[in-house]
Structures are given as C-alpha cells and as structure tokens.
C-alpha cells in the first residue's frame, strides 16, 4: 500500500503524517495524530461534529481527503484554548450550560469561532443559520446560541 506523506500546519505547529489516499482528514486527525477532539457523527458532512478550519474556512474534516491537507493550515478544537487559558467561546459555553453530552461541542465551538472570526457581531438569525450544519440533539440550540452571542459581545469588548 502506497502511503502519502503530508506536511501541514496544525494548530499553528508544523505537522507531518502518512496516510492512505482514501483516508479523510478526520481519519488522519483522529487515528494518525491522536487529535480525537474532532468527532465522527455521520461521515457524510451532515452533522458537523468533525468541523475544522482550513486556511480560515470552516469545513467538515470527514469531507476532505487527508492528502488534500498538504501545505494547508488546519485549526482543530485542540488549538482553541491557549494552553490552559480557555477561548471566550469555551468559557461562555461553560457559563451558559451550552452543552449536555458534549459530543457535538467541539464542532460547534470550531464553527462558532469561524463565525466570529468573520462576523464579530452576528445576529441571532445569522448565528442560527451559520450553525445549521452542526447538529446538537441535547440542547435545542437555545443555550448554544446564547453562549455564542455572549462570547461575541465579550470579544467585541461590549
């Protein structure tokens, strides 16, 4: 079996891994790089639990081949906190009880970060549509949306 050698930047650090051509970026993150924070909920791009940011764009890592990561910059949930200092989104998710089981939470946080990177002052509707690709079966999204809006306000210094 021919494995491809891939060099990429993951959470700001250079990273290298070997992968087979059919492996997805999600497979590589979880199985080759031990970054199991990105979750597999569907493998079809419908649940968003595997969300990562590639060169500033939000994508499902289950819908990208690992070999395609060559030369690109990837941000995963593991890179959201700075060491032990939580990102305001993480802090607000905790304060608002925006998670119950916590399985969809990494994907939601990565997606929310991509939103706030682009739009520091999203409306509730914009937030809901942006996050429509992140399924959560526990919360009904209510506290998730509140946490994102509150984190946005904090990041704006409002």
């Amino acid at each position, binding site marked *: *079996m*021919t494995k*491809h050698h891939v060099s990429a930047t993951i959470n700001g650090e250079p990273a290298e891994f070997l992968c*087979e*051509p*059919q492996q*997805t970026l999600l497979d590589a993150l979880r199985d080759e790089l031990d970054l199991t924070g990105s979750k597999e909920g569907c*493998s*079809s*791009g*419908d649940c*968003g639990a595997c*969300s990562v940011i*590639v060169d500033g*764009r*939000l*994508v*499902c890592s*289950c*819908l*990208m*081949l690992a*070999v*395609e990561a*060559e030369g690109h910059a990837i941000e995963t949930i593991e890179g959201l906190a700075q060491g032990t200092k939580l990102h305001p989104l993480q802090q607000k998710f905790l304060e608002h009880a925006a998670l119950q089981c916590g399985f969809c939470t990494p994907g939601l946080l990565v*997606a929310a970060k*991509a*939103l706030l990177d682009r739009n520091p002052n999203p409306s509730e509707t914009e937030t809901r*549509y*942006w*996050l*429509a*690709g*992140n399924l959560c079966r526990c919360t009904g999204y209510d506290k998730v949306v509140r946490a994102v809006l509150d984190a946005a306000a904090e990041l704006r210094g409002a």
Partner: protein
Amino acid sequence: MLDYRAPSTVEEAIRILSGASGVAKLLSGGTDLLVQLRSGRTKPDLIVDTKKIPGMIGIREADGGFVIGAATPGAMIGECENLQKAWPGVVEAANLIGSTQIQGRASLAGNLCNASPAADSVPALIAARATCVVAGAKGRREVPVEDIVTGPGRTCLSRDELIIEFHLPKRPPRSADAYLRFIPRTEMDIAVVGAGVNVTLDRSGACTDARVALGAVAPTPVLVPEAAAALVGHKLDEKALAMLDGAARRACKPIDDKRGTIEFRTKIAGVLARRAAAIAFERAGKQL
C-alpha cells in the same frame, strides 16, 4: 488500489485522465465524492484533485461578465460583491448548497457534474445563460450549462475532459435573477424543488427577456421556455404569474421519493417559480 494525483496544469490533468486505466474521478470540493467514497457507491481507482491547477479557484471579471473557477468554493462566491450585485440568484443558489462547512468546499463544477437533478446552483446557472469551458484531449469547448447533465449521475463529458471555468454573461440594464428552493427544514436538506428565474425589464417594468429553470422535477434540471414566455411582455401581474405557475407545473416530470411526491413537487414548482419571479422582478425593478 486507489491512487491520488494533484496535477498543477490543465494539460497535466488531461494527460492523467487520458492515461488512466479503470475509473478516474475528478475532485474539486469533494462534498459529494467523499460521501460516495465512504458509502462504497463509487469505487474509483484514481482521484484527480483539480484544486492545485491555477485558475480553478477564483473569480474574475471579463468582457463585462464573470469568470468563476470551476473549483471555487461557495463561500468565496458569496463573498464576491460585484458578482452578488450582478447575479444575486446565482450567488444565492450556490450558497444554498449545504451548510457553512459544505460552503467552505463545494464548487459549481462539483455541483454540476455530480449530475443530481436537485443540484441547487444548476437551475440558477441555466437561467443565467451560464456556460462552462470544458478542456479535454481534443481541446477546449464552451458548453451551455443546460447541456452538461444528460441524466441522473451522467454528464456529456468524456473521460479525458474536465470543466475549468464558468462564464456568466454581461448584463443588460434592469436585469436580475433569483433562485428559490423548497426544503422541509430551513437548511441541510436536498432541494425538493428548485426554481431559478432571470429577467430583464424595460423602463416601464415590463419583462423583455426571461429564463426560467427548474430543479428536482425531472431527471435533469430543466430549462422551461414556456415559463419564460409567460413573463415576456408582461409586468409582474396576477395573470402573468398564473401563466408562469401553469407552465412550470406542466414542465414537471418528477418522481415520488423520500423527499417528495409527484403531486407535491409539481405544485411547489409553480409556487416557487412565481415567488422567484417576484423577487427577480423586484430586484430588476430597483434599477428602473
């Protein structure tokens, strides 16, 4: 055993495709291909990633129109202000493909060549008179979008061909387009029906030119000249809308499936054609 290649020129891509033994699949955004790979619905021997080819990602203005790289992700299409101003219907259709995550990857070429009757961008592109540039071993050809898809999952491209870019023509004054789709939820569904309408108005607000295309109501997205004819010569009045509705319904040859019934799809096609026309007229009317 699956192989992966990422050529850096169109010519190299054509060479790889021409020389491939077994099944070769082109990869642009991959949002359909990877799902099919994972489920085993497609078992290619070779994947040719088009995104390292210069020009495949990006949007430029040319001859008063627009050139969109075949693998340009939806999110980038949505961020192009001039394109949005000239072709709001095309942009909203491209941006309706999947979630934010899908938008980070999904491309016009992928949406078209996946050849689903329900592809969101395709009716809007057809209504817009968009063409695509197809490159292959025999050279390049410009093909109207409506001629690409020949049946569910089938296109007119030969094995050594790939779409490299889409062209949107220069707009006459007082022109606008709109795309609407029906889905059971607000997001994340495949279109049950899609309707793209593109109009040009005269100074009085009467329609001088129209194109109407429907998705998910036949084996391929369909251009409906009868629906366009219902609009031409008319302002946006009840009678024109009723004729449009009827023409749209008559163009439907849908199936019953898990996403909708024949009866439902047919009726909704008329409703969406009317509503999309109303939006297109309103947008064009703002330029009166």
